[in-house]
C-alpha cells in the first residue's frame, strides 16, 4: 500500500452543484425500507409510531450536522481520506475496508429485499438470482457511468417518484383518525425503541462522506443535505400517519409491506391493481441506492487500495449475487434485516460521533503543535 492523498484535487468536470445533494441524500434514503417499515416501528411504539419517526428524523439531521462538521475540518476529502489521516495507513485502511464491507452489505440487503417483494407480490416462481442479476447489471451500468451519471439518476429518481406521495389520498378515504389518539401513550423508552427501529429505513445519508469531494459549493452542503433529510422525514411521516389511520393496530402488525398494501386499495378504471405498478416502479426508487452504495465501495478500492475501479465494479457485483441465492425464506430475510439494522445503527448513527471526536482532537493537537513551533 502506498500512501494516499488525503485531499482530492478538485476536478471541475467532475464536480456537482450542492443543490443536487438534496436529491442524492433523499433518493439514497428512500428505498426498500419504505415498503414496510410501519409494522416494525408500530411493534415498539404502538400508535405513537409517528413520533418515533419524527425522533429518528431529527436524530438523522443531528448526525448529518456532525458529518458535515467532520468533513469541514478538511479541504476536500472523503471518509477514506479522513480514515487515513486520523488512524494512519493500517488502522485507517482497516476502517475503510470495514466501511466498504458495510456499503456492500447495504447493497446486498437492498437487492435481497426487493427480490423478496418481487417474489411475494408478482412472480412467486421467479428465481432470486435472476432478479438480482437484472438489478446488478443496472447498477453496474450506472456506476460505470461515473459520478455524474449516478447523480443524474438520483435526480430523476426523486423527480419521477415525487408524485407517489399523492397516492396517499386514496387510503385516507378509509381513515379513522381516532387511531392516533391519545398522543404520547407510549413511554419514552418505547418511542426511542421505535426510533431505533427506523434505522433500516432512514439510513442512506452516510453517502455524504463519499460524495463530499465532488461538491462545488461546500458552504451550502449542510443546507441542501438537511433539506433532503427533511423531505425524507416528511415522506416517512406522511406514510406512517396514513398507515396508522388506515389499518387497525393488530392488522398493521400482520402486514409485512404496509405501504404496498396501502396501494392495494387504489384502483382506477384503467389500472385496476395499482400496487403492481407501484412495485415495478419501485425499481426506479432503489436504483440510486444500489448505484450509490456500489460506487462508495468501489471508490474505496481505488482510494485505499489503489486498484482499478472499473474491474471492481464487476467483482463486487458478482460477490453480491452469490449470497442472494442462499437467503431463501422470509424468515431469513427478516433476520438479515435485523442484523443489518444493528450494524447500520452503529455505522451510521454512532460512528460519526466517534470520528468527529477523533478528528477534532487530532486537529486541535496539530494546531497547538503548529503554534508552539511558531
Amino acid at each position, binding site marked *: 500500500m502506498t500512501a494516499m492523498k488525503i485531499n482530492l484535487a478538485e476536478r471541475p468536470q467532475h464536480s456537482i452543484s450542492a443543490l443536487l445533494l438534496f436529491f442524492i441524500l433523499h433518493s439514497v434514503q428512500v428505498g426498500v425500507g419504505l415498503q414496510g417499515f410501519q409494522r416494525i416501528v408500530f411493534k415498539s411504539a404502538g400508535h405513537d409510531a409517528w413520533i418515533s419517526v419524527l425522533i429518528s428524523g431529527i436524530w438523522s439531521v443531528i448526525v448529518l450536522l456532525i458529518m458535515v462538521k467532520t468533513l469541514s475540518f478538511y479541504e476536500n476529502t472523503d471518509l477514506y481520506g479522513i480514515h487515513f489521516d486520523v488512524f494512519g495507513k493500517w488502522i485507517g485502511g482497516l476502517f475503510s475496508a470495514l466501511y466498504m464491507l458495510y456499503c456492500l452489505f447495504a447493497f446486498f440487503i437492498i437487492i435481497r429485499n426487493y427480490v423478496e417483494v418481487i417474489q411475494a407480490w408478482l412472480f412467486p416462481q421467479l428465481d432470486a438470482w435472476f432478479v438480482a442479476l437484472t438489478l446488478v447489471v443496472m447498477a453496474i451500468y450506472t456506476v460505470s457511468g461515473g459520478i455524474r451519471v449516478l447523480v443524474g439518476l438520483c435526480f430523476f429518481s426523486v423527480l419521477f417518484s415525487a408524485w407517489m406521495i399523492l397516492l396517499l389520498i386514496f387510503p385516507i378515504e378509509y381513515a379513522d383518525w381516532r387511531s392516533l389518539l*391519545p398522543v404520547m401513550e407510549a413511554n419514552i423508552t418505547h418511542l426511542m425503541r421505535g426510533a431505533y427501529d427506523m434505522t433500516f429505513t432512514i439510513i442512506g445519508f452516510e453517502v455524504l462522506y463519499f460524495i463530499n469531494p465532488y461538491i462545488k459549493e461546500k458552504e451550502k452542503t449542510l443546507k441542501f443535505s438537511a433539506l433532503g433529510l427533511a423531505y425524507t422525514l416528511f415522506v416517512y411521516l406522511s406514510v406512517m400517519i396514513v398507515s396508522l389511520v388506515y389499518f387497525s393496530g393488530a392488522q398493521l402488525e400482520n402486514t409485512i409491506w404496509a405501504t404496498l398494501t396501502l396501494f*392495494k386499495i387504489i384502483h382506477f378504471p384503467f389500472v385496476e391493481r395499482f400496487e403492481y405498478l407501484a412495485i415495478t416502479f419501485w425499481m426506479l426508487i432503489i436504483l440510486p441506492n444500489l448505484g450509490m452504495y456500489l460506487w462508495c465501495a468501489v471508490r474505496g478500492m481505488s482510494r485505499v487500495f489503489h486498484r482499478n475501479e472499473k474491474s471492481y465494479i464487476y467483482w463486487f457485483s458478482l460477490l453480491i449475487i452469490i449470497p442472494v441465492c442462499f437467503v431463501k425464506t422470509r424468515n431469513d430475510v427478516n433476520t438479515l434485516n435485523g442484523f443489518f439494522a444493528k450494524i447500520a445503527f452503529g455505522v451510521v448513527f454512532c460512528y460519526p460521533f466517534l470520528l468527529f471526536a477523533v478528528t477534532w482532537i487530532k486537529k486541535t493537537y496539530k494546531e497547538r503543535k503548529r503554534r508552539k513551533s511558531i
Partner: protein
Amino acid sequence: MKTFPLIVLLIFSLILSGCTEPKILERVGLITAVGYDDAEDGSGKIKGTTAVLQVDPDALQNVDIMTDEGYTSKGIVNLENLRSSRKIRSGQLRVALFSDRLAKKGLINFADSLARDPSISEIVYMCITEPTSADILNHQYENIPDIGEYLYRLLDQNIKNEEIPSPTIHEFMKGHYAAGFDPVAPILKRKGESVKINGIALMKNDKMVGKLNTKEGYYIKLINGRYKGGNMEFLLPKGSLDPILPKKENKGIPVAIDTLQSSSKIDLINAKEKKFNVSLKIRARLLEIRVPVNLDVPKNMVFVQNVIQNKIKKQADDVIKYALSKETDPFGFGESYRSSVRNSNLTRDQWHKDVSSIKVNVDVDFKLLRTGVID
C-alpha cells in the same frame, strides 16, 4: 466498458419477457364471485361455489358455475382446475359470499386467505348469504348473464348511494383486528329472479352474532360518522301528527326524507362508567309525506321536524341497544373509549365483555331545510 452492461440490459429486456408464467386472457378463467357454505355431510369440509368468467366470444355461456368441496379455499380452486379447460385465476374476484351458518362460526380464516393472496384485490366485498351461497350463485337467472359482476354492481351501487356500509375485505380485517369496533357485512338473499340486500349482519370479531334490516343498518353508518347523505324512510307513529292535521290519522304515517348533510360525534362522558353521548346532526329535505299537512305554516314544519327527530332518536336507541346486547360494537364506541382514555390497554376481548354494559345517550339535531319545490 460502459457499453457492455448496456448491451446486456438490452438483451435482457428482449429475453426476459418469456421468463415467467404467462396468463393469456383467452386461456384463463376469471373468478368473479366465490361463495362458501358448510358441507352438508358435516365432515368439516367447506363447499365452495365459484362463478368463473371466460373470455370467449364463441361460448354460449360465458360464466361457469362450479361447486366443489374441500378443506381450504385454495384447495377448492385446485379441484376446480381439474375440471376446467382454462387455468382458474382469482385476480378478478369481486365478491366473496359466506352462508350465515358459516358466518356464525367465524370467517377470519377465509378473510385471511383472501387478504394473504397478493393477486386478490383489497376491495373484494364480503357478504353473508341466506340461506346458502350456492343458492345465489347456482341459480340460472333469466336476466343476469354474469352473477359475479351483477353482485358487484349491486353492492357497489348501494355502497356509493350510502344505503349500506362498505364491506370490503380491508374493512373487515380492520374491524376484526381493531380493539374498539367490529365489522359489519351485508346479507344477500335470492328473491326469485334477482338478488336482494336483505339486511346487515353484525359481527363480533369475525363471527356473525346478529342481524339488522337495511333500514336499521343505516344507523350504523349514521352513528359511526361514515355517512354522508341518502334517502331515508320512516313510519311515524299513528296520531303523532294529529295536532297539525285536518282530521285524525289512524294509521302510521310514512315519510321520506333526503339527507343533505349529516355528522356524528361520539363523546365519552364518563370513562369509569363507560357513558357515551352520540350527537347526530342531520340536515334534510322532505321528499314525501303521505298525509295532507300544510307545510306552509312554519309551526307545522317545526312540528313535523320534531316528530321525525324523535323517531330517529328512538330508532338509533333501539339499534344501539340491539347491537350492544349482542356484544358487538359496529359503531366504534370502543375506539372512542380507547382514544380518550390514556393507557386503557383496551383489547378486543375486554371490550366485548364490557360493551353490553356501556351506557349510550343519543342526541339528535334534525332540521328540515326545505320541502322540495312545492309546499
